[in-house]
């Protein structure tokens, strides 16, 4: 059992150990979808939502696996259950609210097997978070991911207008920007206590 408060868990996941900038989780969508601000916002919302679902799933599976006494099935059951739950949720959203689906639904299948989602599930298990702590962790991680994505998109939109040598344009420039962002996020360290 972990005794950290919900607020410090949230801050820790969102700022100090930002999933993208400190753990390098979810790098693919981070570079893939951060070219435009609007898509970045939607992607951030979709990831936060999937993280919440995944966190609840992972907590339940972990309880079950503890009862059965089969920790070695953790990785395989996490990935299968999270992937299928998100598919189900996607179908539900499509049925119930087509507008929401159009706004963020197309990203859902993209992020199901994103490393940030499985990473969240594994980290919360490793740290022994309880149910509400896991929720706080998922919310923090989602907020942190969205924040990183939006900041990155903001910088990249400006960068489009700048005169950048052809060799550096694209991924290389994005990497350097991400590195600087990551450095500035280090300033948050120490907030969590």
């Amino acid at each position, binding site marked *: 059992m972990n005794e950290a408060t919900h607020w410090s868990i949230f801050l820790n996941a969102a700022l100090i150990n930002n999933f993208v900038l400190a753990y390098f989780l979810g790098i693919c969508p981070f570079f893939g979808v951060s070219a435009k601000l609007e898509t970045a916002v939607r992607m951030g919302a979709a990831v936060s939502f999937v993280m919440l679902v995944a966190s609840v799933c992972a907590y339940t599976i972990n309880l079950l696996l503890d009862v059965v006494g089969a920790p070695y099935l953790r990785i395989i059951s996490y990935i299968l259950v999270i992937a299928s739950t998100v598919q189900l949720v996607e179908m539900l959203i499509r049925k119930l609210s087509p507008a929401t689906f159009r706004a963020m639904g197309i990203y859902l299948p993209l992020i199901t097997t994103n490393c940030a989602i499985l990473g969240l599930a594994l980290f919360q298990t490793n740290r022994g978070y309880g149910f509400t702590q896991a929720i706080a962790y998922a919310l923090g991680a989602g907020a942190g991911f969205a924040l990183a994505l939006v900041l990155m998109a903001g910088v990249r939109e400006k960068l489009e207008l700048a005169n950048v040598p052809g060799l550096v344009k694209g*991924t290389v420039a994005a990497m350097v920007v991400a590195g600087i962002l990551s450095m500035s996020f280090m300033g948050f360290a120490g907030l969590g206590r």
Partner: protein
Amino acid sequence: MAATETTSTDEFVKGLWRDNPVFVQVLGMCPALAVSNTAINALTMGLATSFVLLMSGLSVSALKTFIPREARIVCFICIIASFVTAVDYIIQAISLELSRSLGAFIALIVVNCLILGRAEAFASKNKPGRAALDALGMGTGFTAALLAIGVIREVLGNGSLFGIAVLPASFQTWTVMVLPSGGFFAMALWLLIFNRLREPRPRADHRVQESPT
């Protein structure tokens, strides 16, 4: 990337340079950046990923007639996840400290886009022999790329290589290189070098692929 008339050496070599998974295809970036702060971590991660790549490539290729098309992704994920679990336990049995320093990133090999990508694009369409060569090539390319990043970060950030001091003590270490942001900077440097070397070729397009599904 379908199997055309290529010799078996091509199958192996393409992963090293032309289709290097990290520097050219920009796949599997998360582990490449996250655990490359020291050379030994990078090497372990590279070898573990190569092992999973090889074993899952062999299995997928051997079972390709047995797996129906509609259910292939779930079967691939099952196979990959099993081998990742196996690797996780094997590393813990070999060295607890190594397993601690890699942490959850060993388990995250499951979602490395590279492995599912190769299973889907190559192993499920080719004979086990070719699939193994392809997996070995990609695995070696991945390991080499990780090592390249890891060496830069450890030498500059720690003044050491594989834990042995290589720079004089008077060298002021660039601490930033072993921090997360150093991963991005080292990666940017290598991408720049690769871009420069590939530039004169006609097909110097820079593909950024997103993770499958």
